[in-house]
């Protein structure tokens, strides 16, 4: 089967009573891609994932996974998805290996195939040494890996992970991230997070959600280019301070500027262009013209975090809606 898209979401809307959790969300994910759903708490990430996983129905709109409609062919869709819900719920009274075998059998694998696959995912997720331990006694990092192993055990086409690294320490985050990256190509991965560096490092593409709508989507580089607004230029120039001041003031291309002294008689100048132009060739030309010395010239990069904060408009940090809907 050669469906071009692994996930196709069209106008998806979900209401809980009068509260709208997601509103007209549309996006596509190609096979083999790792896509991150980004957004503050309550933005509708979990709701979107639950609809895709067949746990909740949408109020309007359609969602297709591997060409199957989530509402009409729920079982077919569920066979093709490995889903790890938020907080990674597990049965604490079961042992790791026993739990994974149970899950594999539940997902329709034969007894023999289940045993083989469990061996593979135990190895893949680094769980071999805890395979006989009770899940309830495992550390959070190991539990998270058990959840991942469960999502992988039936070799699904699509893996949906809701906040896979939440509550982990940096080492654990790294190992989980490496694991997810290793899935690209063979599996399609949709993961949600509100930690930006994580999305930037793991995902090919990102969708930013806010208040149930898709605000922006693209690769991290695209988002940066498209959304960073005017392109500030940083230049370090050795020149008399007064001369620089009057020059920048007289320059019609420079809308605003800031200057600070640096070592060895250099000055760090931050220049905001008028309009969308790239000031760098201009600055180089001016420096040559004036006979100044230039030791650095760069376009200031906006981090994804700047973009995210700008887009979601929550610089104060107080997220509007802390609790994600059931």
């Amino acid at each position: 089967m050669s469906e071009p898209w692994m996930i196709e979401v069209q106008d998806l809307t979900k209401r809980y009573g009068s509260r709208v959790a997601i509103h007209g969300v549309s996006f596509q994910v190609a096979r083999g891609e790792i896509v991150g759903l980004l957004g503050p708490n309550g933005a509708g990430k979990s709701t979107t994932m639950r609809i895709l996983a067949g746990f909740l129905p949408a109020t309007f709109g359609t969602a297709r996974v591997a060409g199957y409609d989530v509402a009409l062919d729920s079982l077919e869709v569920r066979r093709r998805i490995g889903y790890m819900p938020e907080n990674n719920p597990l049965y604490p009274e079961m042992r790791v290996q026993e739990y994974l075998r149970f899950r594999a059998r539940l997902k329709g694998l034969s007894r023999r195939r289940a045993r083989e696959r469990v061996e593979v995912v135990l190895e893949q997720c680094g769980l071999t040494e805890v395979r006989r331990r009770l899940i309830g006694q495992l550390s959070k990092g190991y539990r998270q890996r058990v959840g991942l192993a469960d999502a992988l055990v039936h070799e699904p086409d699509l893996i949906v992970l809701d906040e896979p690294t939440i509550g982990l320490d940096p080492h654990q985050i790294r190992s989980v991230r490496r694991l997810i990256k290793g899935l690209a190509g063979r599996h399609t991965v949709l993961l949600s997070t509100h930690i930006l560096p994580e999305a930037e490092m793991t995902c090919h593409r990102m969708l930013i959600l806010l208040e149930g709508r898709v605000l922006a989507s693209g690769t991290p580089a695209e988002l940066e280019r498209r959304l960073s607004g005017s392109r500030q230029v940083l230049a370090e120039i050795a020149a008399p301070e007064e001369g620089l001041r009057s020059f920048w003031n007289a320059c019609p291309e420079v809308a605003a500027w800031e200057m600070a002294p640096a070592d060895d008689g250099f000055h760090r100048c931050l220049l905001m262009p008028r309009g969308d132009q790239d000031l760098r060739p201009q600055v180089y030309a001016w420096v040559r013209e004036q006979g100044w010395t230039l030791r650095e010239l760069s376009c200031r990069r906006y981090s994804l975090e700047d973009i995210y904060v700008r887009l979601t408009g929550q610089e104060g940090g107080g997220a509007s809606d802390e609790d994600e809907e059931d």
Partner: protein
Amino acid sequence: MAQFWVLFRRELAAYLVTLTGWVIMAAVAFLIGLSFVDLILAVRRTPLPLHVTEVFYQTPYFWIIVLFSGPVITMRLFAQERAVGTYETLMTSPVRDGTVVAAKFGAAMAFYLIVWVPLMVCVGLLRLWTGESRALEWPLLGSTFLGIALLGGLFLSMGCFASALTRSQTLAAMVAGLLGVSLFLLSFAVDGVEGEGMWWVRVLGAFTLVDHMRDFTRGVVDLRPVVLYGSLMLFFLYLTLRMVEGRQWK
């Protein structure tokens, strides 16, 4: 079908590896033990006026076990999974809702029957000690267990339904207990009522669990209570299924 057995085994194992399961077994064994004492006292009066199983039934412990074990056994089935969140992993697996309900109910039923095993042991012991062949009559024991299974099936299906309603196990047990006790008391409600011909008196009169169960312990298997309990059980399981599917119209 394979998935049914996979789920059934997990559910049954959950009873047998957790403390709750063993507490229930211990409590029931204790109550059966108490009724065993009553039984032995009865045996000393010769001749024994009743069947062994009927003596068991007439002790007050019988109804305590039947009425309370149902809610306690079933309360965790759905409520716990909801509270812990495993309900989400379970329901996003490629399993039909009906399979989940059937497996959970089946496991509860199997555990309920395991819990009653001490009764068989007691009857066996009595036969051994007294050397009296009348003490152990297989048909009688069979019909008694049929009655226990039917009543249990009904109460467990009510418990399944109650557990599917909420994420609180306490609440589930309370609702199931309320349903069970109400049904049990229904027959007493019309006991003294005048007017045999009134339709509602006759309907309520059909729910005389006490009489039905006494018949079963005497070896009388009447098809009417069998059909009544069977259909009520299916009705409550159907309601449970609707509740499980209910997340779809939430």
